């Protein structure tokens, strides 16, 4: 059932108001005349809601960087009178992430799980607890090649404060030709936002009708990309450890790590100390790392557990489709196909899964 309904212009006004208390981050269109279509979208910080393009297809990068930045200072240290003191750096800026699609909602759920597990990561937690997530559902695939429906991550029932469903454009009394968004809350903060704002209205009978038809229309719009099912992937991988595919595919791999770096569920990082020239003060920083990079698995004594690209490709595939799921119960891959689009060697995860399924 829908909680509330809002028109596109009403929504933008609400987001603008949210901007008084939160940093606004959402999809911004960047013209790229060389591309087809000649525009790409990026999650970016904006001053005004009007700069957002809520009818965006997909964003090149996921919104991960606003919770877990590519590079961040964990603490500053200083040596005073022969003793080191460390001051943690916590980012408690309030942010609203607008336009998070279901795949990325699932990915954020995984990050939440990972960064809370065992020793909770206070840096992630500080950002996460100050972030208000306004998700937008995808009525149709955002672009070709995505396999979120196969991964069962193209819909989300939790992991957001508010989820917006773009309903059929209303006419006359029902929306003046604007997109109407059906809204559902996921948290108490989301509920407050929906119910204490006059721009949100109660759904009309017509809204309820379109919302009822929504899942079916949506399911029909998402074609399958995988020739197997997500539940069968772990067993499939179990049988594929010695497949020749790893070597045959990885001969093309640059080990550039682009697939890791654009992936919304990749959470590995490396840490370094940055000293000032004086050596008495500095920062400990962490930076994104990736399992496809040649030195990712190097340990003390310079031993590399996965010196070959084929081993690394196999490792990544196992992580995405088997291990993460087995360890956390959550999706290790949300089918956004960002890795496939980023790979300049045109190595595709969907193709890897499909070829393994064919072999088996």
């Amino acid at each position, binding site marked *: 059932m829908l909680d509330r309904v809002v028109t596109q212009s009403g929504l933008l006004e609400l987001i603008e108001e949210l901007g008084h208390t939160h940093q606004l981050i959402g999809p911004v269109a960047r013209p790229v005349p060389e591309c087809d279509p000649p525009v790409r979208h990026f999650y970016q910080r904006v001053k005004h809601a009007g700069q957002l393009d809520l009818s965006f297809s997909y964003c090149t*990068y996921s919104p991960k960087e606003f919770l877990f930045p590519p590079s961040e200072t964990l603490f500053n240290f200083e040596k005073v009178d022969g003793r080191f003191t460390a001051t943690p750096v916590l980012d408690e800026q309030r942010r609203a992430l607008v336009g998070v699609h279901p795949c990325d909602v699932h990915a954020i759920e995984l990050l939440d799980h990972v960064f809370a597990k065992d020793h909770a990561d206070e840096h992630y937690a500080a950002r996460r607890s100050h972030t208000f997530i306004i998700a937008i559902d995808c009525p149709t695939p955002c672009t070709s090649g995505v396999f979120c429906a196969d991964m069962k991550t193209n819909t989300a029932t939790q992991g957001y404060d508010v989820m917006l469903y773009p309903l059929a454009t209303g006419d006359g009394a029902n929306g003046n030709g604007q997109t109407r968004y059906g809204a559902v809350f996921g948290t108490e903060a989301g509920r407050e936002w929906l119910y204490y704002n006059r721009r949100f209205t109660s759904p009309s009978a017509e809204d309820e009708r379109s919302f009822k038809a929504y899942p079916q229309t949506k399911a029909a719009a998402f074609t399958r990309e995988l020739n197997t099912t997500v539940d069968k992937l772990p067993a499939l991988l179990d049988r594929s450890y010695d497949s020749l595919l790893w070597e045959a595919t990885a*001969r093309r791999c640059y080990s*550039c790590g*682009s697939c890791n770096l654009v992936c919304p569920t990749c959470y590995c990082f490396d840490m370094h100390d940055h000293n000032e*020239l004086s050596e008495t003060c500095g920062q400990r920083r962490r930076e994104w790392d990736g399992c496809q990079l040649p030195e990712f698995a190097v340990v003390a004594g310079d031993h590399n557990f996965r010196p070959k690209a084929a081993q690394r490709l196999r490792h990544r595939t196992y992580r995405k489709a088997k291990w993460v799921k087995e360890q956390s119960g959550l999706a290790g891959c949300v089918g956004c196909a960002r890795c496939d689009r*980023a790979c300049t060697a045109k190595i595709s995860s969907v193709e890897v899964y499909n070829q393994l399924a064919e072999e088996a």
Partner: protein
Amino acid sequence: MKPKVAIFSLTSCEGCSLAILELEDRLLDILGAVEIVNFREGMTPRSWDIDLGFVDGAVSTPEDEKELLTIREHCKVLVAIGACACLGGINTLKNPQGKDSYAPYVYGDQAKWFPTTDAKPISAVVDVDYQLPGCPMVKEEFLRFVQCILAGRTFRLPETAVCVECKKNGNLCLYEKGVVCLGPITRAGCEAICPTYGSKCEACRGIVSEDALKAANINLQEQYDVSLEDVLADLRLFGAHQDTTLP
């Protein structure tokens, strides 16, 4: 005692030595920690007892070669800075044309008074302890190097491709625009400055690994409709690759 540092230039634009001067405020910190004894861009030479010697420029004349041998003799640690010293740099563009062609082209009928050789990286002539590649050398990397040396920590170049820094910068990959960028095979450390400003990477920091170069050969033939000749020309621009074929 403060380590004695010297900076030398062979055949180059000396832009890398200038990059050191461009460190400005941070240069003062360095000057406090070391003693500079020889620096053509900044002072007159003082001493030949050198702990840490930096060389920019390629070996491109018999004179360069002689000077470099003397430098090596007097430097405990020798560091190549910039694409010219590390890879040969744009100086190597003359090599495939042959000396009989480039010498008269540059010096006309005076050519015989200007002895010149094929350009090569300094490692082709002497042992080199460290390399700080790039055209120009990356100032921040230079600073990190000096910090490591002063603190007795090991210094290593990144073993990752430029794509890593490009992605961290949030760029739209140039391949999406149909541009063949050399980022996937080039050593990172430049903060992907070229792709970030919209130009393809031309491998001025050298090739990150033989495996990446092999992958490029396969991909460019099997996955892309591009002329390998053009790619090789890009790879030769800064001397990253002098062969006429890819592995």
